C-alpha cells in the first residue's frame, strides 16, 4: 500500500529475496500475478495471455522502483557522486549539472555530503550502503525495495543504515524490506509478513506477527531469533 512499509522476514531460502527480485523482474515469475499501480512489471496482459515486455519497457518500469542490495553493488570505478548521478544522466536524461546538484543533495540527505568524491572502496560498509540508497533515490522511485540491506555490515554500522531507512519511512516512502532486524520491523513496519519455503505463513501488523504469532512455524522462528 502506498506510503506504507512492508517487512518480509523468514529463514534463509524461504523466498524473501526471490519475491523482492520478482517485483522488478530480475527474476521471472512462473505463476501468479504481480502488479505495481495496476501494471505488471515485466509483462503486458492481452486477453488471457501475458506477453513478456521488450527490454526497453521493462527498463522504464524498473526505473520507477529503487532497489538496495545486500552487498551494496556500488559501481567501483565511479565515485560516490558518480554512482548517484549515473542513472539520472543516462536514463532520466538530466543534464550533468542538474544531476550533480540533485546527487549532492541526496548524499547530504544520507549524511555523506562530504564523501561525494570518494571511491566505494574508500568508504566503510555502512557508508557504501548509504550511497547505494542515495543512488536508488536519485531515480525518484515510487517504491523502494531493500534486500537485507544490513546483513553484510558490522553490527556497529547497522544503525546508520537503519537510521536512513527510518527517515525514508517517515518521509512517506513506500518500502518493502527483507530484513533480519526485528527491532526495525517492530518500530517502522506497517505490515510484517513471515515467509517459509516459498509461501507466506502469516501476515499482519508487527504487533500481531511479532508480538503474538498465530502459526507454530512463526513462533519457533521468532523464538530462535529473539
Amino acid at each position: 500500500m502506498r506510503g506504507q512499509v512492508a517487512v518480509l522476514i523468514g529463514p534463509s531460502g524461504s523466498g524473501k529475496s526471490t519475491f523482492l527480485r520478482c517485483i522488478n523482474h530480475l527474476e521471472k515469475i512462473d505463476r501468479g500475478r504481480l502488479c505495481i499501480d495496476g501494471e505488471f512489471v515485466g509483462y503486458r496482459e492481452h486477453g488471457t495471455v501475458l506477453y513478456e515486455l521488450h527490454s526497453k519497457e521493462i527498463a522504464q518500469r524498473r526505473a520507477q522502483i529503487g532497489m538496495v542490495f545486500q552487498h551494496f553493488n556500488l559501481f567501483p570505478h565511479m565515485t560516490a557522486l558518480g554512482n548517484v548521478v549515473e542513472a539520472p544522466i543516462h536514463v532520466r536524461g538530466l543534464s550533468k549539472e542538474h544531476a550533480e546538484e540533485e546527487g549532492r543533495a541526496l548524499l547530504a540527505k544520507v549524511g555523506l555530503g562530504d564523501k561525494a568524491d570518494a571511491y566505494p572502496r574508500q568508504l566503510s560498509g555502512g557508508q557504501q550502503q548509504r550511497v547505494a540508497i542515495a543512488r536508488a533515490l536519485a531515480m525518484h522511485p515510487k517504491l523502494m525495495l531493500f534486500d537485507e540491506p544490513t546483513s553484510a555490515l558490522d553490527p556497529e554500522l547497522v544503525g546508520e543504515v537503519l537510521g536512513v531507512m527510518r527517515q525514508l519511512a517517515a518521509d512517506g516512502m513506500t518500502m518493502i524490506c527483507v530484513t533480519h532486524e526485528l527491532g526495525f520491523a517492530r518500530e517502522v513496519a506497517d505490515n510484517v509478513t513471515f515467509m517459509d519455503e516459498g509461501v507466506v505463513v502469516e501476515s499482519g501488523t508487527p504487533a500481531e506477527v511479532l508480538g503474538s504469532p498465530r502459526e507454530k512455524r512463526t513462533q519457533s522462528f521468532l523464538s530462535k531469533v529473539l
Partner: protein
Amino acid sequence: MTVADDRPVDKGGEIRVIPLRHYGRWLSVAVVLVLLASLVKSLITNPRYHWGIVWDFFTHKSILEGLARTLTLTVIAMTIAIFLGTILAVMRSSQNRFLSICAQGYIWFFRGTPLLVQLIFWFNLSALYPDLSFGIPFGPEFFTFNANRVITVYVAALLGLGLCESAYMCEIVRGGLNAVDPGQTQAAQALGMRKGLIFRRIVFPQAMRVIIPPTGNEVIGMLKTTALVSVIALPDLLYSAQLIYSQNFRTIPLLLVACIWYLIVTTILTIIQHFVERRFGRGTEIMSRKELRRKDSQAGNGPKAALLRGADDVGR
C-alpha cells in the same frame, strides 16, 4: 609491563634489529654481475658485430618503410581483432545457443590452424573464389569484385592477422566480462539502465581492468608476428632487413637493426599500457596510494583511508 626490563635495549631506549643476512642472494648477484660484464664486454669489443654498419642502416629508407608497415599492420590488425573479438565474446556469452556455437566454431577454427597457413590461404583466395560477390545465397547479387584486385597482399595480411588474433582476443574479452560481478549488472538493471548502456558504462569499464594486461601482451606479440607476412612477400621491418642482407651479406648487423627497432617499439607500447591500466584502474588498488590519499583529503577521512595510511607507514 614487567617484561620490558629484560628486553635488549640500547642507550637511546630503542630496540636494535639486525636483519637476516642473505648470503646466497649476494653470491647470486655476484655471479649475475660477472656474466653481465662479460656480455657487455663482448658486445663492445667484438668487431664482428659491425656496429658501424648497424648505425648506417638504422635509419635506412627501406628499414623505416618496413618499420612503418609493421606498425600499421600491428595497429590495424589489433583494431580488427579487438573489435571483432568483443563481438565474438558477446556472441559466445549469448543465451542464444546458435550464436554461441557460431562463436565457438570461429574460435575453434582460427585457433586451430597455423597463422602461416591462414596468411597464405588469404593471399591465394582468388584461386578459390575468382569473383567475390555480395548478395543473398541462391538469390540476387548486389555487387561483385574481382578477388585478385580486392585481396592485395596488404589486405590478405590484415585479414590473416586480424581474423586469427580476434579468436584469441575473444577469449581475453570474455574472461574480462566474466570477471565482473553479476551484482553490477543487477544493480544497473534495477536503476532502469538498458543492456547497451550497462555494457558500455558499467560492465566494460570494469572488464577493461582484466582485459588490458593480456591485451598488451597480444599487441606486443602481434608486433613480432607481423614478421610472418614475409611469406606473402610484404616487406615489413624484418623482411626489409632480410632483403638488404641478401644483397650485402651483412646478416648479423641488419638483424640487429631490426631487433633494436622491435625493442624500441615494445618499450613504447609497455609505457602506453602502463598509462591505460592507470586510466581503467580508477577506484581500485592499481590507483596509486598518492592519488587515493589526495581523494581522501578531498573526501574527508574514512576508516579505510586511515587503514591505507597505516599500511603505507608499515611499508616505509
